[in-house]
């Protein structure tokens, strides 16, 4: 095949499998989700596979179901900053991306933490901004849960502006160390900043010189209109759940269409959906594996728990292998807390599920497997590579953040088999061209990007 232009390149992130039912912990190959050796394994594999970055999600309160800590999925995760700094110590090129909440942290502290991570990783840091906040999570913090839902993005916007002001507060036009003249940090006003707004009124001196990437890479996750606007205005990449081809294309076009008003170009923002995958020797083999994995992910107890989320009541007397409950859902939306997804209209969902299970003769567990199915790329390595590539070439995404179902070796097969296929197609790097995450992602230095109009 002759190529008269460089193919659009696929970007890949390695998601350390977190706290939900993706992770198949009953598998004998499933190892600790908290020992550092697991983080090291995934990161070293991802670097061997020339991935753009390693990725951690975050949740600041343990999820609850029916007023008790949810006990069916993997529970327990480390502090994002500490693990990313440690991972930077055992890798050399891989980006280190952390999800950090904009509600339960303060700008000065975040600016220092991310700048430190960028310095200590020689320019590989990224921040996935999430705005999720509720009183439930707030109970672990002084700030409490008082921040109104409607104010989440107001705070996030202002927080990013403030943090950027801090990151830019040391001038870089003169050397830090002038031994000859005996002057350290020449600028008399080094680090001076002040920010006054609705959310923050802060001023003083910042403690760190500009970090290797100028600004750490900013990712954003959040899908409301406000969230998309925020991403278009401020982020370098968007982490999204839009995983199907059509939804992906629509999301991609929508968000990239918002860039122009901020003076930004398409290349300034990458769209990276989360994606799962199952590999087999051939399509049929992969489908069979995928089915077995789904059954492991949705055991009988998990199926009932999912149902209880919609029905808003205890359904433990039901058999997961039997039919759906006849009784109607209640309006109790708080049966599960600490999860991102909420069911908006339980009665409508229940009706829909009943109809589906009757039409297709599905048990509770089979139904939940169907309606929560998230396995996206299922097939042989060549098929999966072709599909990923087609998503990227057709502008449904710029790549994916891969969520393996096993900790910590769940990406190894992908790296050994799919990555070479992508390389053969000319869609994936064969070596790192640079050392910073910005260079892997093909992002410009923040100060080269046109000044954005402020979103408000």
């Amino acid at each position, binding site marked *: 095949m002759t190529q008269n232009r460089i193919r659009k390149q696929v970007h890949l992130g390695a998601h350390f499998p977190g706290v939900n039912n993706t992770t198949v912990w009953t598998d004998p190959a499933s190892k600790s989700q908290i020992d550092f050796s697991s983080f090291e394994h995934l990161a070293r594999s991802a670097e061997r596979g020339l991935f753009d970055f390693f990725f951690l999600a975050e949740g600041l309160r343990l999820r609850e179901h029916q007023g008790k*800590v949810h*006990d069916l999925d993997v*529970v327990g995760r480390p502090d994002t900053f500490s693990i990313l700094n440690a991972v930077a*110590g055992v890798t050399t090129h891989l980006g280190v991306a952390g999800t950090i909440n904009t509600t339960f942290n303060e700008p*000065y502290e975040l600016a220092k933490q991310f700048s430190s991570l960028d310095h200590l990783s020689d320019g590989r840091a990224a921040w996935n901004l999430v705005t999720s906040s509720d009183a439930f999570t707030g109970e672990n913090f002084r700030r409490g849960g008082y921040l109104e839902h409607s104010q989440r993005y107001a705070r996030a916007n202002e927080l990013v502006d403030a943090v950027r002001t801090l990151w830019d507060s040391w001038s870089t036009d003169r050397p830090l*160390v002038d031994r000859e003249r005996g002057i350290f940090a020449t600028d008399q006003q080094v680090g001076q900043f002040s920010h006054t707004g609705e959310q*923050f009124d*802060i001023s003083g001196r910042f*403690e*760190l010189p500009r970090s290797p990437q100028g600004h750490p890479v900013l990712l954003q996750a959040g899908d409301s209109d406000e969230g998309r606007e925020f991403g278009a205005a401020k982020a370098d990449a968007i982490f999204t759940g839009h995983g199907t081809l059509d939804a992906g294309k629509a999301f991609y076009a929508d968000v990239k269409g918002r860039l122009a008003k901020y003076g930004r170009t398409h290349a300034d923002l990458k769209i990276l959906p989360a994606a799962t995958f199952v590999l087999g020797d051939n399509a049929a083999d992969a489908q069979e594996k995928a089915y077995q994995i789904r059954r492991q992910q949705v055991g009988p107890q998990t199926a009932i728990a999912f149902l209880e989320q919609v029905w808003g009541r205890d359904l433990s007397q039901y058999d997961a292998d039997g039919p759906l409950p006849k009784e109607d859902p209640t309006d109790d939306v708080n049966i599960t807390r600490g999860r991102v997804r909420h069911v908006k209209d339980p009665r409508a969902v229940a009706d829909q599920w009943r109809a589906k299970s009757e039409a297709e003769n599905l048990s509770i567990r089979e139904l939940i497997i169907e309606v929560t199915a998230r396995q996206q790329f299922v097939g042989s390595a060549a098929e999966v590579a072709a599909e990923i590539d087609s998503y990227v070439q057709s502008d449904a995404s710029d790549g994916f953040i891969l969520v393996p179902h096993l900790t910590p070796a769940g990406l190894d097969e992908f790296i050994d088999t799919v990555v070479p296929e992508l390389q053969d197609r000319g869609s994936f790097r064969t070596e790192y061209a640079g050392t910073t995450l910005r260079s892997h992602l093909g992002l410009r230095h923040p100060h080269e990007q046109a000044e954005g109009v402020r979103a408000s």
Partner: protein
Amino acid sequence: MSERNSEAFLVGLEFEGTGVHPHSWRREDSRAEELFTASYWVDLVTAADRGGVDLAFFPDSFALQAEGRQATRGRLEAVATAARLSAVTSRIGLIPTATVTHTEPFHISKAIASIDFSSSGRAGWQVEVSDTDVEVSLFGRKTLQSNESLWEEASEAIEVVSRLWDSWEDDAEIRDAATGRFIDRDKLHYIDFEGKNFSVKGPSITPRSPQGQPLITVDASRLEARELAVQRGDLIRISASDVNEASATARLVHDHAAKIDRCVRVLLDVDVLLGADRGAADDALAELEEWAAAPYVPKSLFYRGDSAGLIALLREIRGNSGLDGVVLRPLALASGVEKIAADVLPELNLRPRTGPTLRERLGFELPVNQFA
């Protein structure tokens, strides 16, 4: 209660900038250009680790150093630095400072616990308060607190962190395929802390770490921190102008601790400037003082001279009752670490301490979970 082993003698090092003297960056050997890079810190701390230093202290503050533009300024976050070093060192204890006045104890607890995981049980935490208006303005959430209020809040923060560290029992993860349960939720505990300054629900999102309770360090040089140090500290740092005064203070601290049934280790801070001989060290000091245009005011006992003299001083300190060790504070860090690791430590015949975690190596027992 763990017994103090009088033969054990702990050596810690303070990793501050290019040295605790703010003008030490001007020395040829300072590596000042690399102050904000990982390789600077990795080189220094791994050298100390190999050389047998027991504890690495990383000071921190939110305030930019107040000195003029001829002094070093700027600082990487200490917790980040300790974490960066956790997987590339093997024996040394990693003790970053984290201040509690403007930081959420929930964040501190998981940050330190995670370093404990990534270092296989070598994490500690030096507790500090932020007592300036400058720091208040950086956060804009509070007004300046009195000393009393600051240390009371610090005590609450330690209580919260300590409860969060225990909020998972060690065997909470059960992976019971039969019942579909990953954890035994009865082994996870709400901490339900209600204090004067904040309340925290818990449990932690991070399971209990290898040491259970990473080591708490309090710098008791300031009188207002003494009470907290004895109540809450495992490692207590003190200052003194000579060995006799130090040993008197140390005995006092130990007596107080014993009264409330606590076992602590008292470490004497020693400012250090090494040279080939006393004359060379004096010259080095004169140079620093000239750059600073001010005499150096040591924090504690100040040793300057050759390595042999430091060895003799450390032997004297070791022989004095009450003191469990020292925290050496090199005025010039790069050369100081090199000499201490290469010339000083081998002469002290420190017996290699055994034990899987830092706590055990230092002779502390692994703490029983307060909720179990």
